[in-house]
């Protein structure tokens, strides 16, 4: 790439620092550098520092991602790809073996006890319902609605991340955001331990 005509000393003496960096970014030849030793030295200095930054960054990453770690990484990738082609087996719920029906034999006493318990429960429900029908309904309906809302809300939260998104949205959009933030400020964050990771 040829150098931009404007990368030349403005005052006719030397390139500014910005112009040196511009030359580096554009990766082009700069005729001034070929003519001005001080500017060339400064440019070489800039390149040397930036190259050192880059080499050190590469070295650091390679110290973390050793050959062994990369080997494990590759293995895990291959295993994940293999699992893609083989969906998990569904283990059927254990069923009774055919030909061997379970015969429950209840003695007379047990049958009477079971019947009495069922009758008592039915009577209790009926009486409770009859005594205060309105209160009963008033208690049930919001509970049912809350349960339905909670169930729907729970179903929508598939992952932890989604859970935190919901909280963030509630915090930002809630009219009680001030109180919530005050509670948040007083609450110590939960300390979690990350699972150990194979090196």
């Amino acid at each position: 790439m040829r150098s931009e005509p404007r990368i030349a000393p403005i005052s006719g003496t030397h390139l500014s620092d910005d112009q040196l960096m511009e030359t580096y970014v554009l990766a082009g030849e700069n005729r001034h550098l070929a003519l001005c030793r001080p500017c060339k030295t400064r440019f070489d200095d800039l390149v040397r520092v930036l190259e050192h930054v880059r080499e050190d960054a590469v070295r650091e990453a390679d110290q973390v991602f050793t050959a062994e770690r990369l080997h494990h990484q590759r293995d895990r990738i291959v295993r994940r790809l293999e699992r893609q082609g083989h969906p998990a087996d569904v283990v059927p719920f254990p069923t009774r073996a055919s030909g061997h029906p379970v015969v429950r034999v209840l003695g007379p006493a047990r049958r009477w006890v079971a019947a009495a318990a069922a009758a008592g429960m039915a009577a209790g429900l009926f009486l409770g319902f009859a005594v205060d029908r309105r209160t009963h309904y008033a208690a049930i309906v919001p509970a049912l609605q809350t349960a339905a809302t909670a169930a729907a809300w729970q179903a929508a939260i598939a992952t932890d991340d989604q859970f935190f998104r919901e909280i963030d949205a509630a915090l930002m959009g809630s009219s009680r955001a001030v109180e919530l933030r005050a509670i948040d400020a007083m609450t110590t964050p939960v300390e979690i331990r990350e699972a150990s990771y194979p090196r």
Partner: protein
Amino acid sequence: MTAGSSARPAPAAEGIGESSLAAVGARPVAIETTLAAQVQDLVAAGNAQAARDLFAQIVTRQQRRASRIAWHYLRDAADADEAVQDAFVKAYTHIASFQRNLSFEVWLTRILINGCLDRQKARTRRSRWMMPAADAGRRDQDAIERATRPGDRSPEDLLMAREWRDQVTAVVKRLPGRQRTVFLLCHYADHSTRDVAEMIGLTESTVRVHLFRAIRKLRTAMEGRHHAI
């Protein structure tokens, strides 16, 4: 053209020859791109095992580069490892949508960067509610220190080198999002500004502006600091 190539040679493209030129930009076709096209054909033909075996070769060739990018993006080895795995798995899963006139490396890096960005956002959300374990970053630092050979340098030099690295890391971390991404991809991962423009959906001139500003900030922050070279 890679930034700074007037001072150092441009990274050698692993091409298979001038005779196989990509349709766009007349660049040599990298081996990974050719392999990816073959994987695509095998998947389309229903030969999953052969496709996976061939894709594993691509993984071997690209994983180090991808891991470097993910590491510098996320600064957490476990996170970076998973991000790289996710990127490769996603690339394989969506191999049918890979366009052969593009570079596979560019396509994969785009997937990787998007994955890293998602992880960063998730991490930011988690950090509002949970405090990570104190030793989370310690393991990574221990690995780096163990890998450094103390015999090559004096303890003072090692300490100064470490401080210098910490300063550079802090400066890069403070860069605005786009500048940081461009700097990581152009300067650390040695991609051309043209490739980076394709990866992140900007024009090449915009990429150069971001790179220039990032380098200027780094240069300003490092001026006057002593470092062991």
